[in-house]
Structures are given as C-alpha cells and as structure tokens.
C-alpha cells in the first residue's frame, strides 16, 4: 500500500507530541515507535529523526529509559513516560486541539467558497 506523504514541516511540528503519546501508551523502544507512527498513518519516520526527539524528551524529563537485553540482538533501549511527561502530554494535546480547531475554522469557509 502506498504511504501518504505529509509535508515535512507538518510532521516536524507534531512529531514530538505524537512520540510522547505513543510512549505514554506503554513502555516501548525506538523501532516500535516508528512502527506505531507508520500504522497511525503518519508515514515512515527515519531513525535519524526519531532518536534525537526521544533524547530531547528524555533530557526534558518527560521520558525515562533503560537498556534491556534483546532476544538475539545487541539489546534495546526502552522508554516510558514519566509523571511529568504525562502531564506535558495532556497540556500539549489540549493546546494542539485548540490550534488545529482554529486552523480548521480558518480553512472551512475557503473550502466552502471553492
């Protein structure tokens, strides 16, 4: 199935929030986050884009991480949302909804005029 391609700047604006949302659903690791984003229809995010976002969220104290042995590979880094991370997710989700609602309101009349 062809993957829908979104403008890079759209994804850049919402990626951090989406990553936080995915990790808040349950402890997970980098590649699984990429798979979740793809399944959600956001396209394939490269490792070089995802891991700096995870690192930034970790530095901000929104995520905690730990290394665990893999079944056959070199081990994986698992991420979990902290209490602060869950609060931030709630706040940012509310802000995002307000933002998209306003942007949507601005676009609606133009779509109707067309």
């Amino acid at each position, binding site marked *: 199935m062809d993957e829908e391609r979104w403008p890079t700047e759209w994804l850049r604006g919402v990626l951090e929030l989406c990553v936080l949302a995915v990790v808040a659903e349950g402890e997970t690791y*980098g590649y699984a986050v990429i798979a979740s984003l793809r399944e959600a229809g956001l396209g394939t995010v490269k*490792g*070089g884009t995802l891991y700096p976002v995870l690192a930034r969220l970790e530095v901000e104290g929104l995520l905690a991480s730990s290394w665990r042995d893999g079944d056959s590979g*070199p081990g994986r880094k698992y991420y979990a949302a902290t209490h602060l991370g869950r609060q931030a997710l709630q706040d940012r989700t509310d802000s995002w909804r307000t933002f998209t609602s306003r942007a949507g309101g601005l676009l609606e009349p133009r779509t109707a005029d067309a």
Partner: protein
Amino acid sequence: MTTSIDTYRNDLLLALRLRDVPGPRIAEVLAEVESHASDTGEDPRESFGAPRVYAEQVASALGLAGRAGVHGWLLALTGEPGLLGLLSLLGGWLLPQGLFHLGAGTTGPAGVPALGMVALGALLWAWVYRRLSRQLREAPDRVWDPRTGADMAPPVPRWATAVMVGVPAFGLVACYALGLGAR
C-alpha cells in the same frame, strides 16, 4: 553503497566528540544506532544519514553547538597540539633520513650515526602515537557501552595510522628518489 556498522559507529563517535557531546550521551547514541540497525537490518547511513549530519542533529537536540570548532578538532587529536606536531614532524624527518643513510652506509648531518637517527625517529613516533592513542581513549568522559560496560572508542582511527605510517614512508621514498637523482 553500504556502510558497515563498525565504520559508521566510529565515524559517528568522532563526529560527536568534535561537537563536545558528553561521553555517556555518545555511548547512548552509538548503542541506539546499533540496536536500530539490528532491528531493521537497514544500512545505518540510510536510517540516520551521514555521521557528520546526524551528529549535528544530536548536538542540536541536546542544545549543544552544532558545529565542530577548531578547539574541538585539536582536542580530539591531541592535548598538546604544538608539541606533538613538532615531535611528529621531527620523527617523520629523522626516521626516513636515518634509514636512507643506513642503506647508503653513510652518516647523517654533522656526523650523527644513521642508526641513532632511526632509533630517535622511531622513538618519537612511538611516543606521539601512544600519546594520541591515549588522548582518544582516555578522555575524561569515556564512552562506555550502556549495555555491556565495554569501551566503545576505537584504538586509533585508520586515517591517523595511515598518516603516521604514510608520512615517514613517503619521506623515505622521497629521500631515495632525491639521492638517486643526485648521483
């Protein structure tokens, strides 16, 4: 073109060092790259981009300076760049000159024994190599693998070895070429 994970990891380590990323964070980044490559089977260059570019992204995400300055380069190469550079040049001159005179059965400038020149040149190069190696491996914040505790820093980059072997070798060949031309 595919890149082996070891080559990519070593290039990325150097690029992160040059951007003053702390050792423990470098170790996390390198381990993430390995883990991701193992999960996906992808070429790391495909997933993360060129090591230099990815290092800039990581440094930027951590709020560090995105580009390596002259200070970073010097720090990565030697702690005492002037002294090491001078000794390296001296060794690089003495070693091939000594070997040339040894082969020709003559003494060096001012009657210095050829064997002495070779020994001193080799000694200087060995010391510079050891110093450079230690500088790369024993930085204050070493890069310990968060999974195994092993040191992730390579002994010495290939280009450094190539320069240290190549410069005296080139000097030796040049000496012989000039010597033959003068006859």
